[in-house]
């Protein structure tokens, strides 16, 4: 019994990391997969791996910040599978540079991919879903949507924008039977965070801030995405779900760290 038998899932940014982890899970639960990504080599490798495991995969190469590319990705998915039941938007770019040195061109690129990409994909896939009476959309925001970090202004701004996009879109899409929710991953062991997670000094040091005592895996996130996409979340829309092992819950210095417990 699989939750996504006969369903079609379009994964934007599906060639690696959390997007690919979602594709793996959706595939193992019976879905047909349309993977849209800008990195051709990674896309081909991801598709080959999935097909080896018997999944039905369509790959579309393109740039999510370009409306034409997004329209043709949606058209290709529909052409191959007849529908789009689920859209997952995982594509994002990040650049860590202090604000006063941040190049404008890079700011525009980050906003174009991370935020405008969500708009374009939601609009294009949403129209297909509305015509069939419904669907489910899951967008990747981040704990950076509300949890600030040095030298990461554009990324955080786009992720904060995504949370509010999702809330507003939920209102507009509800009448079409479409639910839209976001996930807010914390620090997940993917290429985007590798410089931190695998740094011999910073990696173990930052881990002290995470109550769960470990960095997240791409599959930790994929499991939540599948829940939100499934009928188990039938009454959830406009919500962003934090998946961070407790990273953003509150103060990171505890009573013990301060030595107060001994003083009492």
């Amino acid at each position, binding site marked *: 019994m699989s939750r996504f038998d006969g369903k079609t899932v379009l994964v934007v940014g599906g060639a690696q990391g959390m997007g690919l982890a979602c594709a793996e899970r959706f595939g193992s639960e019976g879905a047909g997969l349309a993977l849209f990504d800008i990195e051709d080599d990674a896309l081909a490798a991801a598709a080959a791996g999935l097909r080896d495991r018997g999944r039905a995969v369509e790959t579309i190469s393109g740039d999510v910040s370009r409306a034409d590319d997004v329209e043709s990705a949606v058209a290709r998915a529909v052409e191959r599978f007849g529908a789009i039941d689920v859209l997952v938007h995982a594509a994002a770019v990040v650049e860590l540079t202090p604000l006063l040195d941040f190049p404008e061109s890079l700011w525009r690129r980050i906003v174009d991919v991370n935020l405008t990409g969500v708009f374009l994909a939601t609009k294009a896939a949403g129209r297909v879903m509305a015509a069939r009476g419904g669907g489910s959309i899951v967008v990747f925001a981040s704990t950076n949507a509300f949890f600030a970090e040095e030298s990461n202004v554009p990324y955080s701004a786009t992720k904060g924008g995504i949370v509010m996009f999702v809330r507003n879109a939920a209102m507009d899409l*509800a009448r079409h039977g479409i639910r839209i929710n976001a996930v807010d991953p914390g620090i997940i062991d993917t290429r985007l965070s590798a410089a931190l997670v695998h740094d011999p000094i910073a990696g173990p040091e930052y881990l002290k801030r995470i109550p*769960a005592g470990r960095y997240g895996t791409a599959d*930790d996130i994929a499991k939540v995405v599948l829940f939100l996409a499934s009928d188990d979340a039938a*009454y*959830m*829309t406009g919500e962003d779900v934090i998946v961070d092992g*407790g990273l953003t*819950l509150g103060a990171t210095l505890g009573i013990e760290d301060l030595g107060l417990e001994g003083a009492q």
Partner: protein
Amino acid sequence: MTDPPGRLAGKVAVVTGGGSGIGRAAAIRFAREGASVLVADIAADRAGAVAGEIAGDGGRAGAMAVDVSDPAQVEAMAARAGGEFGGIDVLMTAAGVLSFGSVTETDPQAWNRVIGINLTGTFLAARAVIPAMARRGGGAIVTVSSSTGAHDASPGNVAYVASKGGVAMLTKAMAVDHAPQGIRVNAIAPGPTATPMLGSVMTEDEMRRFGEAMPIGRLAQPAELAAAAAFLASDDASYVTGAVFAVDGGQTAKVGMTLADLGTIARQA
């Protein structure tokens, strides 16, 4: 069918307020996913009926009358689950009461009753089961906050709103404290749900109109809250802790009055 079978196979779950509404739906759902369930409720007959329903479905369940505001009864509940089923892996704290009144309209006795059941009851249940969970190397607690309380205030509802806001923050605080023991603690924050609790204060027509005011256009069914609770209780939520899950049909995503309600959008068009 949407529930993946067996996510809770071999687990033991305790559900307070399990005799009706969201608690009942969660007890049934947990059992269908393989858990043995101790159904606790203030009303022994309701707890027994739900346990009977689970057993009739081929599941394993016990029933117990528990007033969650009484520490001794809550401790006995934890002891019973440990004794009968060999441990505790999942706790869901669904026992709750609704109340109305502003601060000036709420007498201290009414306030204490609502806080005692909704907030202190959650504290007591968690306090009673966490040692047993820790001994097993971990567990999952699912509390029940509310869209009213976790995110927004609603008028004339102070004790309830304060208790549910307290539950949300208690949930986060417990998540931080007990993560090292492998215990995840999360809340669901239901929007208006078609439960006996809501039915006791609203007419059917009011409930229908309330549902129509949600972006999704209807009230939640208890099973939809149970589905979210089952997810949070399962390993599918392995990296989720301290989360307050709005399951509210978009209620808290929208402002009370919209441009469409005011006719502004139609006029612009």
